[in-house]
């Protein structure tokens, strides 16, 4: 049997959906679903949940590069087979969780993981840094302004101690998206690493009529920067578009709609850092991340400027915030002007919103703190 290209519809199955989750439950989960009473983190990366039946489940959380090979998955399976009756799960942030039903099974599992080099770091729980959710970057996508996996590796190497410990004032969620499409929750992360373009699209006049619908390309631009135009290609006048570069904010939506308008560029592209977002409704409502560093270069392979900037912010936060305070809650409490001061981030007008709804962010009060920035006014 198998697929027969000559009769593609013969015997075709479709709309099966995903497998039912329950068949994949470890026994202790199956038996105690809905009965859990409380949990406790025993050490960074090791959780215990207690059921009303008295049962306990011990979860060991393991970091993962997300971009993983078949071999790596098979190794995960080996570990699950050896310790967890062949069960495992992945978290919403791409960590791997191994569960066992008795405390004594934890240490052997940890030992096994440790024995496998740096492949299975244990951590990512509580008041620390867990895995960086990220996207494709140069490994797969057509619109990135930076890489994903490479940046994440560089950053996580540097923040590793915060993955394996819980010494921050609260959880700190880092996310990366390689372009403004922001596949993920970069717009609501404690620290967000965002690939940004800074050059307007080029127009490939020779190809545009073949691959784009011009009206769609024109209407794709939120700022109306794409205009109808004419060009001469091979001595023939054709209809095409032009870009008013003054109005372009490098969002890339035109390229999404029209392949003949590439905007990626080695020098133009790089990374912006946004901070202070959150998702949970705990204490304060969800918050958007705020752009505090508009651009850092794609300094491959280890993005030292990006890594340092993030480390600096994280350490200033760790030193300054109160217990339970998320990064954004801290920045708001001390005031964003103080944030820039204590993090030693130069303030630029790029951090002042000038898009839609911008007025909301203007400071319409005389309440402010004097900082290094105002020194020239108060000297």
């Amino acid at each position, binding site marked *: 049997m198998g697929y027969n290209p000559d009769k593609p519809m013969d015997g075709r199955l479709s709309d099966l959906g995903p497998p039912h989750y329950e068949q994949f439950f470890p026994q202790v989960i199956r038996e105690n679903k809905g009965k859990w009473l409380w949990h406790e983190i025993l050490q960074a990366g090791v959780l215990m949940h207690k059921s009303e039946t008295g049962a306990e489940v011990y979860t060991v959380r393991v970091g993962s590069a997300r971009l993983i090979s078949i071999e790596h998955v098979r190794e995960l399976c080996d570990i699950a087979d050896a310790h967890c009756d062949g069960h495992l799960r992945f978290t919403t942030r791409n960590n791997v969780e191994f569960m066992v039903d008795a405390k004594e099974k934890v240490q052997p599992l940890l030992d096994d993981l440790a024995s496998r080099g740096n492949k299975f770091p244990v951590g990512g729980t509580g008041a620390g840094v867990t895995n960086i959710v990220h996207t494709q970057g140069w490994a797969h996508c057509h619109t990135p302004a930076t890489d994903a996996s490479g940046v994440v590796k560089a950053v996580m190497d540097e923040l590793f101690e915060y993955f394996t410990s819980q010494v921050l004032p609260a959880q700190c969620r880092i996310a990366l998206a390689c372009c*403004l499409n922001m596949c993920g929750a970069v*717009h609501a992360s404690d620290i967000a690493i*965002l690939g*940004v373009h*800074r*050059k307007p699209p*080029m*127009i*490939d*006049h020779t*190809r545009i009529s073949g691959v784009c619908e011009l009206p769609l390309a024109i209407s794709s631009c939120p700022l109306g920067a794409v205009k109808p135009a004419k060009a001469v290609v091979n001595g023939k006048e054709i209809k095409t578009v032009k870009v008013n*570069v003054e109005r372009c*904010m*490098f*969002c890339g939506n035109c390229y999404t709609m029209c*392949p003949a308008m*590439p905007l990626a*560029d080695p*020098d*133009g592209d790089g990374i*912006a850092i946004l901070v*202070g977002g959150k998702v949970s409704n705990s204490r304060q409502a969800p918050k*958007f*991340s*705020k*752009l*505090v560093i508009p*651009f850092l270069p794609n300094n491959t392979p280890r993005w030292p400027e990006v890594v340092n900037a993030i480390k600096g912010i994280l350490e200033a936060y760790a030193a300054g915030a109160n217990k339970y305070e998320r990064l954004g809650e801290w920045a*708001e409490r001390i*005031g*964003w*002007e*103080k944030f820039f001061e204590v993090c030693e981030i130069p*303030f630029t*007008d*790029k*951090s*002042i*919103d*000038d*898009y*839609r709804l*911008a*007025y*909301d*962010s*203007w*400071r*319409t*009060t*005389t*309440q*402010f*703190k*004097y*900082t290094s*920035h*105002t020194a020239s*006014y*108060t000297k």
Partner: protein
Amino acid sequence: MAKHETPLLDQLESGPWPSFVTDIKRQAEKKPECWDILGILELSFKERITHWKHGGIVGVFGYGGGIVGRYADVPERFPGVEHFHTIRVAQPSSKYYTSKNLRQLMNLWEKHGSGMTNFHGSTGDVILLGTRTENLEPFFWDLTHEMGQDLGGSGSNLRTPACCLGTSRCEWACYDTQEACHSLTMHYQDEIHRPAFPYKFKFKFSGCPNDCVAAIARSDVAVIGTWKDDIRIDQAAVKGYMANEFPANGGAFIGREWDAFDIQKEVIDLCPTNCMWMEDGELKIDDAECTRCMHCINVMPRALRPGAQGGASICVGAKAPILDGAQFATLILPFIPVTKDNDFEELIEFIESIWDWWMEIGKNRERVGETMQRVGLPTFLRAVGVEALPQHVKYPRENPYVFWNEEEVEGGFERDVQEFRARHAA
């Protein structure tokens, strides 16, 4: 003029609050045209609609403002208010008067006008309410010649500036609001009287962040006092408050039984920046964290005072909601000295940098706050030569849509798509 039946308005003569109806009736005994004011108003109360026509361009020679033209839409029934133009007389800073001055003005108005006034208009002028076109020039002549006084603003010009009472009777004023208001009013007489702007423009001066003239809500340039050094503390008086020797908030709560004063609950816990605490019986303030909100000072006026090094924060662009929604003024200059010593140089320079720009690019009937919104705050800051500060915003931008200038980007914007295609097949 005939006396009219005013059964509806008459119902506004009872009650404890002063009755404008009773007052107009009293005036009508001396100036019968006031019966027509009551008559036309009664008609509006009956029909639930105004009876004034749209606008009407009247004025005095050489001025483009100061008079608001008004005509009744039922003139035959109320000839006394057929013309009913408003005259805006520029008020003195903080609205102190002598009875002599006011009597003189009232005499002029008795001679030339309706007999009714507003003390004061929302912008700050004395409003003389209702006169005929032919009275305007004679009134103006008398006002200038007999009283040495002048009209205020209307139209697309600088409107009559206004201020809180400032140092004249308030312990918190961080600069001399009256002098600033007066000096700039005199300095800009031309801008007040001869419309040359895209739309109206307003200055207001408050001596401290309490903002008793509501500058931040309704002025294109709001000059709001603040200080750059530390809040002055009299620890003995702090103890006095704690011992309940002085009433909280300068007596603002006398008359209701609140719990005994609690410095922790009423001052320290309400400080928005949490920068106060008690230590060894003394009140401490970490002034670097203070945003000078005034709360603690308001609550304990005998113990706390603004710093000694006063000046002002300048906020720009407030306005009422037409068209895009109301705006508060946005903090642009965190601190400048505001002093007669150098003829308010910093302030004047800043104001003119705004005008130079706005008069060039502002659209007709576009308030400066709207122009700011249209071009964006960064562009505005560049236009007026102010370096971007984190103090300009409540929080940094939440979207990734940054405009870069070509010069800021290595290699510029020009690229060769053929060359690109050589490395990247389509």
